[in-house]
């Protein structure tokens, strides 16, 4: 057609009308409020979970044949794990861990299997005198807890060693216990291992965002389809099509409804950001003074902005598809018939990233979307194998350097069985003994190792 129909100003006029019609509708307002509440709830989840966590007492059983080892691990674990946070009234504070010795190993195992207790720390002296400490838990792979157990094990190792020294003897070489975290899922980021909590948090966050995007795109897409179908059924289309070109109408409609969607998104995102910005204060109010809000790992401004970009692109794609479908039917009712195949298209788009974000067993290199945080993190470290890090005080902390070997981790592990083994018998000094002195002064205090 030779008629010259520039996109503007008509597309803008259409977009303005579409926008104000959506924003004024009651459905829109209600859904905004509901989604806002949901999103704030999600943002508060880590704090709320910790509130529950705090109320819970984790029962840990210690299994060891030698009394001395049992006493030692109980004492060290108590010292490391039941450490009240600074600034908390010690009299009102309740220890989060109940650490008790259990002499019957099989009974303890049964209890763990039944969920009566949360974890077992087992200390076994092997024939060559090496101590093997195993931390068994039914709960989720809790990096913090197993690390605490690791600290306790280390301290026990040092205690055991110092106790075995003959009185007044010259000090032999202190052999740093090896500390192995054996996890078959060990995502790393830039060569640095990522804490399981952060990984879980990111997975959760990714799922939430994908679902949010899926739902909103589907809803707003349906608005577009219904809008087109309604204009056809109410016969406004006949007047519209003589007043404006189809391109102007389509662009205006998609932009207007997309704008309404974006407004809703901003209305949802702003309170969430506020919660995140003031999470320390909120955590302090809910959990008691001095508690910092556990960050929802990975929920950053960048992620929210990226979500905005993906929403716009995804919405533009689906809105155009939905508009095309809406133009095929002559009544909005007929859309019901077509909405199923449409949802299937959206579903296909939803399932892939959802799968990636959730993580999968196995190691198939295919079927991955690039750019998804967890997945690309895994892909970055293709080598497999066990790794040892030195158990020096600093390296047991969150020292990024300790994982710089490019962690060889296999994917898809069952996170329940994390083993922490301490092997003082290793003769060869570990390669990774950064900052850990090879010789210690006499009578090292165990606490010092926890740094």
């Amino acid at each position, binding site marked *: 057609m*030779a008629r010259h129909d520039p996109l503007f*100003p*008509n597309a803008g006029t259409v977009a303005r009308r579409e926008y104000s*019609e959506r924003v004024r509708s009651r459905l829109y307002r209600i859904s905004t409020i509901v989604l806002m509440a949901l999103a704030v709830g999600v943002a508060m989840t880590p704090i709320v979970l910790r509130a529950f966590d705090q109320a819970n007492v984790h029962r840990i059983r210690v299994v060891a044949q030698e009394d001395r080892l049992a006493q030692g691990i109980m004492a060290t674990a108590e010292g490391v794990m039941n450490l009240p946070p600074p600034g908390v009234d010690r009299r009102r504070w309740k220890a989060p861990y109940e650490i008790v010795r259990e002499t019957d190993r099989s009974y303890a195992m049964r209890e763990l299997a039944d969920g009566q207790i949360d974890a077992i720390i087992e200390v076994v002296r092997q024939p060559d005198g090496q101590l093997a400490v195993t931390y068994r838990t039914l709960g989720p792979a809790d990096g913090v807890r197993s690390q605490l157990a690791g600290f306790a094990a280390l301290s026990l190792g040092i205690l055991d060693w110092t106790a075995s020294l003959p009185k007044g003897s010259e000090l032999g070489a202190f052999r740093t216990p090896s500390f192995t975290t054996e996890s078959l899922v060990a995502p790393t980021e830039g060569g640095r291992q990522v804490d399981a909590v952060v990984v879980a948090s990111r997975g959760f966050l990714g799922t939430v965002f994908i679902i949010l995007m899926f739902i909103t795109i589907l809803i707003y897409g349906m608005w577009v389809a219904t809008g087109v179908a309604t204009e056809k059924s*109410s016969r406004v289309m*006949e*007047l*519209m099509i*003589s007043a404006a070109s189809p391109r102007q109408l389509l662009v205006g409609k998609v932009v207007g409804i997309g704008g309404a969607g974006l407004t809703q998104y901003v209305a949802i995102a702003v309170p969430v950001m506020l919660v995140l910005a003031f999470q320390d204060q909120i955590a302090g109010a809910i959990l008691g003074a001095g508690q910092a809000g556990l960050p929802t790992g990975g929920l950053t401004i960048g992620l929210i902005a990226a979500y905005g970009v993906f929403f716009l692109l995804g919405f533009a794609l689906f809105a155009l598809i939905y508009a095309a479908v809406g133009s095929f039917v002559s009544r909005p009712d007929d859309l019901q018939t077509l909405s199923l195949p449409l949802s299937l298209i959206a579903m296909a788009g939803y399932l892939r990233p959802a799968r990636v974000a959730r993580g999968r067993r196995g190691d198939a290199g295919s079927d991955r979307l690039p750019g998804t945080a967890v997945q690309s993190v895994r892909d970055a470290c293709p080598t497999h194998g066990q790794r040892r890090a030195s158990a020096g005080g600093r390296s047991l902390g969150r020292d990024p350097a300790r994982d710089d070997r490019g962690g060889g981790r296999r994917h898809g592990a069952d996170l329940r069985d994390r083993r922490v083994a301490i092997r003082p018998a290793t003769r060869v000094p570990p390669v990774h003994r950064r900052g850990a002195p090879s010789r210690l002064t006499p009578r090292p205090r165990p606490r010092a190792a926890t740094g």
Partner: protein
Amino acid sequence: MTLEIDRVTKRFGRTVALDQLAFGVPEGMIFGFLGANGAGKTTTMRICLGILRADEGEVRWGGVPSTDLPRRTFGYLPEERGLYPRLTVIDQLVYFASLYGERPDQARADALGWLDRFRIPDLADRRAEELSKGNQQKVQFIAAILHAPDVLLMDEPFTGLDPVNLALLRDAFIELRDAGRTIVFSTHQMEIAEALCESLVIVDHGRIVAGGTLAELKRSSRARTVRLGIEGEIAPTWLGSIDGVAALRPGAGFAEIELMAGVEPRDILAATLERGALVSRFEVAEPSLEAIFVELVGRPSDDGEEAVDEEDAA
């Protein structure tokens, strides 16, 4: 300037909706576009607007093909009325006018003026779904003319209006014509066409069966009407049984008789007198537009159910 429909052909599948349709409408004229349902009236208007594309031929205004003209050249009142149900009357009027490039404040002022003229100023802030059908139609009419188009295409503008509103709309037509607008309208109401049109065409199955000024059309018609009054009889229905009578309509104190082709009025008079009736009035009348329509199309104007529905065919 002339609106030229130049040998336009449009097919929907195997159905020929318009077959070499050609006529012209001079500027500043109220032009009747008559035809049975499915004759191709709406299709023609849609082609004028560029909503549909002609398979052959083209529509020109002032020599320029209609598809090259700015959209605001035309104002359109669709047969299927359509307004945004949730939008207020004034908002939609301003909206439609802005799509045609009117300034919103100007459009608002004009719209309020027209609402006032149509005696519905209080409806400006009501939502369209709350309006009666007649009022919706008036709003729809304002939407079609607010951007001051040169050519107005009105598809059945008078259907469903009560006599008062009908008179309002008729006055508006004449006022627009006097302001230099060219108005093409289709209708089934022959009295209105007779009262408003200077020129008209009658289409049937996508072809023009008659056209010209009203006077020309009446002169060329073979249809004859005789008005016959009989003393002492208010409704002389027996006149219908006389040979050569095509149709009989009761009038006020007389009967209107449509004659069959080839029958002369005097034959009827003779037959009436032969039966012994006291004839008090005998008059050979100009044929009504309706009579011409029936003669040409072969069926009454609103009997077109078997005709092809354009949209279904599309």
